[in-house]
């Protein structure tokens, strides 16, 4: 008869670099072994407890939340939560420990437990200490007394018998300690891994933690694999029965489950005398008047009533009020923002100003995103201008306080590269070897690829060390490594947040993060608001401000004329450099085929060029149906209701879920679980039950096997990368606005993009090239004319773009602002005058000379440098007296030199394109220009060369690399298939000026050059610094 057992001391891999198993693995193993309960007791952390909780619910295992703590001036303890209050106390204690130390560490003292932690149980965890002599008292006796005083009636001594040197003697010593202290003994396992097989990985984790090879870790390694979940038959042999029975008594006293956590919304957003519902209605009504000055359409009114009723029923008003408050703050500060996500595109959100997407424009159903059945909070992400998001974050901290608001964590996990690096070092490989191995994995991740990459890097995958490395790396990938801050997910609580989840310090000062990530919050149904940064919003605000200034009247997003045919015409030509979302190579090749003609087409365009639809094989059917090459059919009326807007092809994540409902008979709740499983399957698997259920459901409803298979494949494709319509719609609005700006205000648009760098796919050089191709006059940086930002100057027929001093590499903003200030007082007479009155040091002057920004004062660059070198910058009695010195007659630099210098300082040139200089040579090599390639017929053998301005390797295109070559006439879009890229890796990755021999492929206006051979012509460029944006 096997004894019952509850494991009370168990670390998961959220005790970073100690625990060697995932929480789910531990729970699964404990359940399989028939344990009565499992306590997850990560070291001063509750980070792994939600995952364990979810797994335990599935497995039907009782889970206890707890934590192991090593007091700085005291013993090691395990604390277990008995109730919600005890859990809150524990979370607060962990918070205190974490906040008292730098990121990743903690610091707790005996004094922190002086009150005894109410509603928690305590286990004293002895190490290997033994009395000095048989007669002497146990070294832990004082600690045991100390603990007994504070945890009277709820403290134990953990007996951890792990096949040490002499367990029998150790147990006898512990019995004596128990007798003398009055604390009972209880069995525990100091579990670090779910099965013995993790021993090697556990050793490697120790080595990584200590920063030495395993062989040099000595006694820091565990002597054996006993710190795993042991079979009960072995426990029965190891422990006296009463110690095992005691584990059950401890477990019984822990009645807390994470299900008891309830989220409580902040209250202060509701003014006195109002309820959340009445206040939300007031705000919505006010918004209706603002949005519909000419009267509220009947349809919108009905929508509002419907939504408010649903929100009231689910009591989600405080959530909408919270988001509204944040958005209103941003609006008051003039920070552009835009909501998106499941609930953002509701009519209520439109009235609250959370989104600009007019519900009249869309036909989405609010219910689809906020459902009655799913008892979970709605999800609204709000994008803010990336340059000003910090103001919003600090507002949230200021408004709610650090006790109540904190950022969500992002669990940084091991990827192939980091795992190879750490395991390699732990196995004692030489640093250059490890780096070589790791860097050869930099761009081409993935487990399957590992043996090949090893061979390529000169390692034999069959050698024992390498075989070991591969096995360990395979296990380590996906292990949490540390907690980082989520890009902007905020959790805001009514009272102390630290009673809900521990808060720790983030790497950034002034930031704090909770120990749970968004999946954890999601699983427990806790509210979060995503405060995200979006570069395009900064660019749009800059552009709108410039347009307003030019027109002499405020011009906002709402003033952008809707559905302008000129915009769609430009977009259909794929003339979209700089336009939000649709500027990538993949998007650009889709545009001429899709030919968007209305707003909803943009929504589709945003969603369709994603790995989900592409891997699900939806793109081509959609295009063919749109072009009328294939009839639009539906397997049933029910399916038609879901897919009619997208011609019978599922494109949005919502549609896939709706299909599961109408075609396979899922309830909306089940469909939502499917969505979660989809998001996680690549990491965790576990879609098989859904597959079976889905296919059976469809069969039962009379759908064919093919259709069922296709839907399932699509679900898999969507899993990781599915893009919901709700996000697409918000993005599409920004697509439209940015495309409109590009079409009608190209100078302002380009200036705004330059002022918002870094962002987007293109470097300043390409943005400026593009603007000039659209007849924008671009004027150089000039200390007598430029501001810090790029700006507009009067010009004919259209405003001209003046490059700002922000383009000058190395020039501080403060220096530029002093220049502008001094210039307004009086124009500069000379470089010396400039240096003196703008208080510029030599470094700043050199930067300006390098940018050729002193031309108006000094002449060409060499003269500028000569003057700059002669400026006396040190305080000097006669400093204000002009220097009388003959200037030498320096020869002007050559065009090539100017070009190199332009690129070096500004990253772009306003002179001739570098390839224009090389054209005679290139022509002799019979290399065609981009314009010539563009005009060639399909199938023509051609060769071209250009500066590599981008290399993209979409996840969707199995191993294909897209290379963009730029020359003086435009761009050549090159496709490099995998077979060639592996053969000519060096040319592909190394060349700045790349020659491509290949075949022209033309589909309508989309022209590609499919490479057959690559040639590195970088030597022709000399020192020319071309920058490429690699691998988005």
């Amino acid at each position, binding site marked *: 008869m096997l004894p019952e057992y509850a494991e009370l001391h168990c670390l998961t891999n959220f005790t970073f670099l100690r625990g060697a198993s995932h929480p789910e693995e531990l729970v699964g193993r404990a359940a399989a072994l028939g344990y009565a309960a499992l306590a997850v007791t990560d070291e001063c952390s509750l980070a792994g407890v939600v995952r364990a909780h979810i797994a335990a619910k599935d497995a039907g295992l009782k889970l206890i939340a707890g934590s192991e703590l090593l007091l700085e001036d005291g013993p090691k303890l395990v604390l277990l939560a008995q109730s919600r209050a005890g859990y809150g106390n524990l979370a607060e204690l962990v918070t205190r420990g974490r906040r008292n130390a730098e990121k990743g560490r903690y610091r707790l003292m005996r004094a922190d437990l002086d009150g005894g932690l109410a509603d928690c149980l305590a286990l004293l965890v002895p190490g290997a200490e033994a009395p000095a002599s048989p007669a002497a008292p146990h070294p832990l006796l004082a600690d045991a007394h100390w603990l007994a005083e504070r945890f009277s009636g709820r403290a134990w001594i953990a007996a951890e018998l792990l096949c040490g*040197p002499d367990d029998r003697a150790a147990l006898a010593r512990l019995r004596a300690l128990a007798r003398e202290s009055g604390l009972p003994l209880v069995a525990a396992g100091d579990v670090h891994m779910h099965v013995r097989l993790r021993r090697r990985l556990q050793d490697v984790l120790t080595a990584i933690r200590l920063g030495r090879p395993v062989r040099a870790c000595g006694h820091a390694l565990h002597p054996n694999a006993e710190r795993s979940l042991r079979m009960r038959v072995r426990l029965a042999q190891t422990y006296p029965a009463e110690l095992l029975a005691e584990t059950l008594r401890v477990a019984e006293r822990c009645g807390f489950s994470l299900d008891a956590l309830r989220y409580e919304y902040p209250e202060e957003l509701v003014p006195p005398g109002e309820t959340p519902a009445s206040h939300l209605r007031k705000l919505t009504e006010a918004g209706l008047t603002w949005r519909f000055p000419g009267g509220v359409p009947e349809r919108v009114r009905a929508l509002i009533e419907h939504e408010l009723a649903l929100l009231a029923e689910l009591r989600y008003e405080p959530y909408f009020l919270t988001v509204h408050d944040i958005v209103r703050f941003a609006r008051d500060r003039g920070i552009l923002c835009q909501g998106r996500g499941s609930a953002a595109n509701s009519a209520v959100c439109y009235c609250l100003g959370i989104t600009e997407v007019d519900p009249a424009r869309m036909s989405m159903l609010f219910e689809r995103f906020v459902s009655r059945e799913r008892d979970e909070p709605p999800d609204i992400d709000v994008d803010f201008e990336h340059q000003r998001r910090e103001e919003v974050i600090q507002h949230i901290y200021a408004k709610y306080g650090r006790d109540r608001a904190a950022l969500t964590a992002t669990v940084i996990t091991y990827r192939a590269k980091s795992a190879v690096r750490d395991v390699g070092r732990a196995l004692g490989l030489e640093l250059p070897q490890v780096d070589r191995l790791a860097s050869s994995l930099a761009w081409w991740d993935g487990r399957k690829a590992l043996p090949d990459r090893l061979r390529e890097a000169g390692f034999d995958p069959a050698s024992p060390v390498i075989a070991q490395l591969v096995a360990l790396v395979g296990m380590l990938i996906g292990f949490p490594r540390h907690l980082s801050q989520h890009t902007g997910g905020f959790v805001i609580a009514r009272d102390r947040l630290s009673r809900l989840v521990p808060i720790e310090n983030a790497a950034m000062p002034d930031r704090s993060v909770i120990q749970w990530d968004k999946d954890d919050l999601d699983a427990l149904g806790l509210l979060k608001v995503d405060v995200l940064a979006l570069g395009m919003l900064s660019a749009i605000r800059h552009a709108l401000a410039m347009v307003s200034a030019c027109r002499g009247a405020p011009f906002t997003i709402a003033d952008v004329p809707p559905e302008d045919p000129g915009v769609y015409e430009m977009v259909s030509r794929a003339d979209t450099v700089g336009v939000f979302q649709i500027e990538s190579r993949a998007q650009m090749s889709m545009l001429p085929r899709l030919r968007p003609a209305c707003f909803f087409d943009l929504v589709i365009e945003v969603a369709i060029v994603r790995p989900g639809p592409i891997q699900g094989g939806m793109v081509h059917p959609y295009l063919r149906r749109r072009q009328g090459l294939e009839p639009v059919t539906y397997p049933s009326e029910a399916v038609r209701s879901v897919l009619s807007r997208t011609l019978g092809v599922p494109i949005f994540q919502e549609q896939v879920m709706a299909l599961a409902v109408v075609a396979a008979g899922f309830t909306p709740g089940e469909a939502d679980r499917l969505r979660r499983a989809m998001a996680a399957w690549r990491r965790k698997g576990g879609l098989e039950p859904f597959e079976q259920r889905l296919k059976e459901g469809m069969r039962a409803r009379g759908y064919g096997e093919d259709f069922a298979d296709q839907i399932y494949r699509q679900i898999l494709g969507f899993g990781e990368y599915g893009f919901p319509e709700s996000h697409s719609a918000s993005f599409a609005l920004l697509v439209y606005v940015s495309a409109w700006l590009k079409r009608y205000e190209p100078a302002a648009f380009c200036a705004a993009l330059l002022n918002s760098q870094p962002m987007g796919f293109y470097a300043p050089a390409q943005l400026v090239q593009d603007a000039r191709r659209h007849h924008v006059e671009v004027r150089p940086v000039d200390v007598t004319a430029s501001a810090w930002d790029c700006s507009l100057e009067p010009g004919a027929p259209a405003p001209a773009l003046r490059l700002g001093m922000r383009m000058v590499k190395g020039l501080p903003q403060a220096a530029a602002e002093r220049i502008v200030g001094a210039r307004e007082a009086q124009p500069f007479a000379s470089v010396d005058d400039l240096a003196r009155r703008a208080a510029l040091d030599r470094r700043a002057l050199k930067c300006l000379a390098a940018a050729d920004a002193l031309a108006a004062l000094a002449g060409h660059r060499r003269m500028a440098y000569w003057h700059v070198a002669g400026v006396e910058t040190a305080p000097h009695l006669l400093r204000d007296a002009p220097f009388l010195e003959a200037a030498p007659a320096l020869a002007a*630099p050559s065009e090539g030199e100017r070009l190199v210098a332009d690129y070096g300082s500004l990253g772009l040139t306003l002179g001739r394109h570098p390839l224009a200089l090389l054209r005679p040579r290139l022509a002799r090599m019979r290399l065609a220009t981009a314009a010539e390639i563009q005009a060639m017929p399909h199938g023509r053998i051609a060769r071209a060369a250009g500066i590599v301005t981008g290399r993209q390797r979409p996840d969707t295109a199995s191993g294909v690399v897209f290379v963009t070559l730029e020359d003086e006439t435009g761009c050549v879009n090159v496709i490099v298939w995998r077979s060639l890229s592996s053969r000519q890796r060096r040319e592909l990755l190394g060349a700045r000026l790349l020659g491509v021999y290949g075949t022209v492929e033309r589909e309508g206006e989309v022209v590609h050059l499919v490479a057959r051979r690559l040639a*590195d012509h970088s030597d022709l460029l000399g020192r020319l610094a071309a920058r490429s944006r690699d691998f988005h």
Partner: protein
Amino acid sequence: MLTPEPCAIACDGRILACDARTAARGVAPGLALTAACALVPHLAVRPRDPAGETEALLGLAAWATQFTPSVALEFPDARFPHAQLSSTHTLVLEIEASLKLFGGTAPILATARRELAAMGFTARIASAPTAKSAVWLARAGREVALDPARLATGLADLPLRLLDCGADTCAALAAIGASTIGDLLRLPRDGVARRFGRHLLDEIDRALGRLPDPRTFFTPPPRFHARLDLAAEVTQAEMLLFAARRLVVQLAGFLAARSGGVQRLALQLFHRETHATEVAIGLVAPSRDAEHFTRLLRERLDTLGLRAPVRAIALVAENIVPLAGEPLALFGDGGETGGNGGTGDWAKLVERLRARLGAAAVHGVATAAEHRPERATRQVEPVAAERRRLPPRLPSRAAALRSAGTGVRPFWLLAQPRPLEEIGAVPHHGGPLVLLAGPERIESGWWDGGDVARDYFIAETRDHAVVWVFRERRAPGGWFLHGLFA
């Protein structure tokens, strides 16, 4: 460097030098190491060895003294750690006084070139009327012999980066379009001095011979070498020792004059017909104690069978290291019994044991932090300094808690575990064993191919000896005797 794979030397993550095969694939000095590895997957990368470079240059300096006693060295400039090796290590030879002896510049250059190539070095050699101009020419790769009349014109088109003026000044000069010495000299002198400092102009003036350019010349490293021709051929070791003693004293004096000591010396015995015999002596610590040297020589000579009569002897000592004054005679006369137990006597005891038994037979023992018992101790060099060392302070309570205590270990561990007979699940060693304590489970060592998985027990034999045995946890299992308790 000859390796089967393409190879390169790296420093701070950048390529410093590479062989021709590597260069052919696009790698050049200055390239990031990761980039190089991406280009050449099997690249064998060696870290830079500054000590080796210095040693090589010193060796070459000694070689160069055959041409002139005035040899100066220029080492890599710490400001430019990634500069190419060939442009940083420089030897400057003042050969004017040697021209007559060698018959002009050309023969010297030819000899130097030939011998350097024979030694496997790549060198760029130039000669010019001033040291600085010759260095610049060589660094610029102009392997010319410049005569005084053409000095100024010969330097005019040299790039300014050859001057050690710092990257900033170089860049500033390039920015105004001055890239050669000639360009610089064409600029207004005052203006240049005000902008870039006098140093630059002074350097050029030194190269042009307008300013003196004094240098510190290389002195060959100290080395003791003394030879003694014996009056008659000697066949007995004892007689040799008597003769050697004279050289030992000479050595001690030589060392004392330099406040130095040696850790290694060699007595060479020259025979009439066969080649010389070398008796090498190694010490535990550097010394210059003549008595000590003599004693060690005696031990060695006693055990050495002379192959042939000895006609001459020589004593050679290199690598002289600084050694503070040592009270030579105070304890040195303590005699062979080593009465006072000081560390010096202990060191001498070890040396004498080693001289008699061979170095490999005498070693120290240290504990090693290892779970596997057979690796928990390791052989170490006998250390004379301290025989017993206490930890500097007791480990903190927290550390003590974390480090698991190791169990009782037997004094005598068998070199190889010995299989035990197992009868009815009970291990036997001259009768059934009674297990007193255990199991202590040890599972460790997978990383070096020596993984063990054993359950250890302390057991008692029938005749009440206490032994340490284990049960192998892996198939085919079985019991083993591993140690004996005292």
